[in-house]
């Protein structure tokens, strides 16, 4: 009996010392603001292990300037005097439905207090950055930061998260979010063609709540979502998409049991996370997938705006800024993308108009072409092959136009 007891104790103390060593390593990386070391630690099993370490590491990963991390920062002041944000009613509706799964054992008055804190936190971000659009699910993300971080850094943390991780989802339109989802089929196509074929009739909208909310809407344990946030904050924003691809792949068998021509059923399976959720394995698999098929290899990557968080996440302040990112920078990217969306909308409207009037438009185009050719020909004879080539080209264009 005794030897085994001894071994147990030894194992136990081994485990403790490994955990202690890791804690020390995370804290040391925090002191040096060493992002790549933090990233490696976040990917390894257990992530940052405890909330007290997360309180050190997350602000750094989020790129908060050291001045914002001071405990006395009076972060929530004066938001009440700013003008109302257009989405405040929606925020209220969602905050009323927050704190469903955690924290445990709350009395009604504690719950009401938490909800009022959450509402204050979200409203102060939105009022200070009125250009951001609130989306349902944002409250799930804010809730995690509220429960893990000390109150003094909550506001800058949620602000930085909004601007550098989920900025695309806070634009006036949902299309940049959809563009991100389109990466998932591409990852599958390159890493698992049979599964991709099986899902080819299913739109990737099943991944919407997972990616949009950084899984905070779907993971029902605070410990698990906090551990997942370690790695989501440490890596580029595109990692959420790879993680979803890893989740899809982990459910191959279940998916193959459902016929490919039942997209509703497939959607239904994939829109809920598997239970139990093997987070560590999935994180490792997502890391592997991203290495195997990097974003640049995915055709849908071209559909992502150059101002998207996915394409601007490398622009960290560098050594001299100790990895800090400025809010102005995020806002600039946001506004560029709004501009781009406005332009896209105009283009779509024009395309629609042309399509609606394609008969007359085609005639005008042919007339202009003939006119140009006529003028050109009057200037002097053109070499024969060029004329016939042009004729062929215009014929082809007309056929394509139809």
């Amino acid at each position, binding site marked *: 009996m005794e030897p085994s007891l001894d071994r147990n104790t030894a194992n136990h103390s081994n485990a403790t010392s490994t955990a202690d060593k890791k804690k020390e390593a995370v804290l040391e990386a925090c002191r040096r603001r060493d992002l790549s070391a933090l990233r490696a630690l976040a990917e390894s099993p257990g992530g940052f292990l405890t909330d007290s370490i997360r309180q050190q590491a997350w602000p750094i990963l989020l790129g908060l300037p050291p001045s914002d991390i001071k405990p006395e920062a009076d972060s929530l002041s004066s938001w009440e005097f700013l003008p109302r944000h257009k989405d405040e009613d929606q925020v209220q509706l969602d905050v009323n*439905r927050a704190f469903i799964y955690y924290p445990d054992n709350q009395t009604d008055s504690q719950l009401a207090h938490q909800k009022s804190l959450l509402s204050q936190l979200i409203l102060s971000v939105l009022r200070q950055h009125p250009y951001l659009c609130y989306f349902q699910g944002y409250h799930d993300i804010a809730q995690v930061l509220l429960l893990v971080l000390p109150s003094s850094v909550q506001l800058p943390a949620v602000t930085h998260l909004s601007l550098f991780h989920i900025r695309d989802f806070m634009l006036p339109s949902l299309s940049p979010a*959809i563009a991100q989802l389109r990466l998932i089929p591409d990852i599958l196509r390159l890493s698992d063609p049979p599964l991709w074929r099986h899902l080819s009739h299913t739109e990737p909208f099943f991944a919407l709540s997972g990616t949009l909310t950084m899984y905070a809407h779907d993971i029902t344990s605070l410990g698990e979502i906090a551990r997942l946030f370690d790695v989501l904050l440490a890596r580029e924003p595109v990692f959420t998409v790879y993680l979803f691809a890893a989740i899809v792949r982990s459910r191959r068998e279940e998916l193959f049991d459902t016929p490919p021509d039942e997209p509703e059923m497939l959607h239904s399976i994939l829109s809920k996370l598997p239970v139990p959720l093997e987070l560590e394995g999935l994180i490792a698999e997502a890391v592997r997938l991203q290495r195997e098929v990097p974003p640049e290899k995915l055709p849908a990557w071209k559909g992502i705006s150059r101002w998207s968080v996915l394409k601007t996440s490398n622009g960290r302040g560098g050594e001299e800024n100790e990895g800090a990112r400025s809010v102005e920078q995020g806002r600039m990217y946001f506004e560029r993308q709004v501009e781009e969306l406005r332009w896209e909308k105009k283009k779509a409207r024009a395309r629609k108009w042309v399509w609606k009037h394609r008969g007359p438009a085609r005639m005008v185009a042919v007339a202009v072409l003939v006119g140009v050719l006529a003028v050109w020909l009057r200037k002097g004879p053109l070499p024969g092959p060029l004329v016939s080539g042009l004729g062929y*080209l215009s014929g082809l264009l007309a056929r394509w136009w139809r």
Partner: protein
Amino acid sequence: MYLAEGRDKRVKAILEVGEWAGTVKLVVIGSSGVGKTALLRLYCDHEWDPRLATSTIGIDFKTKRLLVGDQPYKVNIFDTAGQERFRTLSASYYRGAHGVILVYDITNRKSFLDLEGWFQEAKTCSTEVVVLCLVGAKLDKAAQGERQVSTEEGRALAESHGAIFYEVSAKTGENFREPFVGTVQRIVGTPGLLEAVRRKPVPDALRLNRGDYYTKPIILVSLLHCCLSG
């Protein structure tokens, strides 16, 4: 036409074989927080727990077996998010829908006023023959004097749009089956509706933009090819 929900054994056997007389597709829409998900969860999963009420992100899907007469139907129900920004997405799920259930909260006047927009969406996004059903939810709160929309108003609006009308409560369970059963019954009873919807192409406006990066290179390459070979 009588209706049962798998209560006797024969019925259950038919339902379990998984052979359907048809698949009916319903979409549930309405403003945020009116109780779409609660109603659906009660109907499909026999659950009602206000503590578990979360917002729907994007789109959710549930399925239910239902007998109409002695014919088993599979009912696929799409639950949509109430927030405006998700509407572009739910629009794509109207494709092939046979019925639309519009929900408002009888204790929230605004959710009733929003219905004009929801009816508009239901009509532009689906076929002309689609069956509409208007549902006033949270009927239990009427007893506490919280009602802001009268039954008559609700019924009048429904009639003006040719929709079926119910007031329901997920909390007490009052009428909770009727909107689904009534809608499916009317769909099945409308000759040709189940077949017609299946063949209807998606309206162009509803296609989600997949980006031009697939088509542009194809056109360029084919042009080049033609020029060179011509």
